[in-house]
């Protein structure tokens, strides 16, 4: 963890969320969220289920619409303007709990599709990039298989590679290991650790507290749609302040 903290974090703001509120119908899911993420930060978001963690990061690339407040990503204001939304989405990579690979395309096609159609990169170059990232997640030999032929851990690593092929400046992870067997969690976390070591700006919703200690420079704890505590991992785990945080940590670290 000492190593992780050595990583440089610039003063440039990558994501600026101000006073964001969201409702599902009349249910107030996100309340007054204020969050500034600087470039190179690695933030882990924890909290009980239903606390709005996933909804918050899904608002950042407009998979969910927020009703109040503002979100600015890389200086682009997220509004209902489709051009801005598409611009932000192509700069922000997202990894889902259930991988969401395209089952009708091979691994290589999964990785080259968006670069070819969104970035208009020639097919040859896109394939070279895709192979580069597939090597990085250590499965280049699966390139011509279909997602259905891979294990869960392999699929999730492909999903990470697919996002990286768009050369995003920010990566969002929505519980990337929650649907995996214990044996496969490590291979995915290893991939994420190496990504963090390269200085990628990351927001990660996860219950892997070991990962948070090792990689994060900031841990955010959410409850009932609000950010109730945030701190450096060391302080967060050893000296939580909020009652809800204390209870949560005692529950998940209890055994």
């Amino acid at each position, binding site marked *: 963890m000492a190593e992780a903290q050595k990583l440089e974090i610039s003063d440039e703001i990558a994501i600026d969320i101000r006073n964001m509120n969201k409702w599902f119908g009349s249910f107030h899911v996100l309340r007054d969220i204020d969050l500034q993420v600087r470039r190179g930060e690695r933030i882990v978001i924890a909290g009980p289920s239903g606390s709005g963690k996933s909804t918050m990061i899904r608002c950042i690339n407009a998979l969910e619409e927020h009703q109040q407040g503002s979100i600015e990503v890389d200086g682009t204001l997220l509004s209902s303007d489709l051009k801005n939304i*598409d611009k932000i989405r192509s700069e922000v990579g997202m990894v*889902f709990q259930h991988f969401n690979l395209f089952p009708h395309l091979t691994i290589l096609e999964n990785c080259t599709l968006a670069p070819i159609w969104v970035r208009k990169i020639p097919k040859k170059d896109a394939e070279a990039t895709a192979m580069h990232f597939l090597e990085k997640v250590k499965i280049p030999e699966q390139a011509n298989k279909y997602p259905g032929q891979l294990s869960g851990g392999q699929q999730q690593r492909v999903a990470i590679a697919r996002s990286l092929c768009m050369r995003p400046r920010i990566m969002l992870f929505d519980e990337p290991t929650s649907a995996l067997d214990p044996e496969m969690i490590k291979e995915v976390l290893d991939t994420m650790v190496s990504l963090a070591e390269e200085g990628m700006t990351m927001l990660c919703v996860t219950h892997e507290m070991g990962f948070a200690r090792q990689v994060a420079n900031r841990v955010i704890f959410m409850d009932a749609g609000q950010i109730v505590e945030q701190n450096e991992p060391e302080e967060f785990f050893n000296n939580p302040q909020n009652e809800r945080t204390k209870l949560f940590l005692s529950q998940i670290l209890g055994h």
Partner: protein
Amino acid sequence: MADTHAHSVAFVRKDVIPESPPPARQTGVPKWLRENLFSSWANTALTIAAAWAIYMVLSSFLPWILNGVWDASSLSQCREILAGKTGACFAVLTERWHQLLFGFTYPSELYWRPVLAFIIMLVAFAPVLFFDLPRQMLVVTVLFPFIAFYLIWGGPLLTPIIAFLGCVAGYLVFSHYGKANFATGFFGGIAAAFIVWSIGGLLVDLVRPEEPWMTPVPSRDLGGFMLNMMLGVTCVSLSVPLGIVLALGRQSDMPLIKAVCVIFIEFIRGVPLITLLFVASVMLAYFFPPESTVDLFLRVVIMITMFSSAYIAEVIRGGLAALPKGQYEAADSLGLDYPQAMRLIILPQALKISIPGIVNVAVGLFKDTTLVSVISMFDLIGMIRGPILASTEWSGVYWELFGFAALLFFVVCYGISQYSQWLERRLATDHR
């Protein structure tokens, strides 16, 4: 105590048991027979009963086929030749085959034209149905509608050329403006096509040749199985794209588009096809400008296409609903816009799921083309019920004629069904 227990329970395997073949009595034909036909007394009794039933059917059916008379000029002559034996009178097929296939007014010296169009159709459909074939073959597919029109209806060569140029103009306008703004490109394309068509139409009238190379054949002279094939092929190929558009429109966020699609689908599905066909033959003329005479064939094509596209839209909607929400989200999160996400991610998967349903509608539609016989178009069934059964020579020959019609339809429909099963296997990539 603990030691003795461990002694009796602990076990470590050091080697793998090698694979061995199953016992000989458990494989092959004898096993299959014993398991499926003679596994118990009840089963054996059923086997014998079934064998007897099959024998009874074949013993009366086979002589009818084998004794069949293929060469006679009327039913009474058939009966003379048979002299009291059971036997079919297939002579009606050999004598009237051209009427069954082409109708009774299509000029017989021009039969080569629809036949040639049919052969070109096979070439044109090959690259669409079997996508491993070279993509260059799609040129034939694009040109096929115009070639087929020219071959079947004849008339001045300029007509299909103008029609083709209109489509090209529409496509060019759409591909040029459609990228920036879909609506501009779409309506601009339609406008461009209509401009070319109307100018071309005047041109065709001006330079109409006295004697065109291809003798013109009016639509009312089309008939027989050729008419069923033409209606089936045209309507299926038009209603699949229209069905996709309707299904996507029904899912649209835009209330106006959604409402139009829902009303269209629900209305068309709630009306019997026969009603629509009568509308086509009698009433549709009221909706066109007074002087224009829209061809009956075209009116029927419009109605059948609308009818089946409503069904296909619902089938595809089922496919769209079956896709997990994550597929839409993954496509969105990669920055794909709506047309890209639909074309590259959503529709390929939704259509694959919908194949059985679409084929179901297509087969049903093909058989429903025989309904045009009720609005006095002489398709295969219209020919049989009308000119052939009403003739003095062949009145009363039911089994042979309708059996032949059933056989023709069965061959085509079974072919479609086999193709769809091949397609499903070919597209299976999910390895469930």
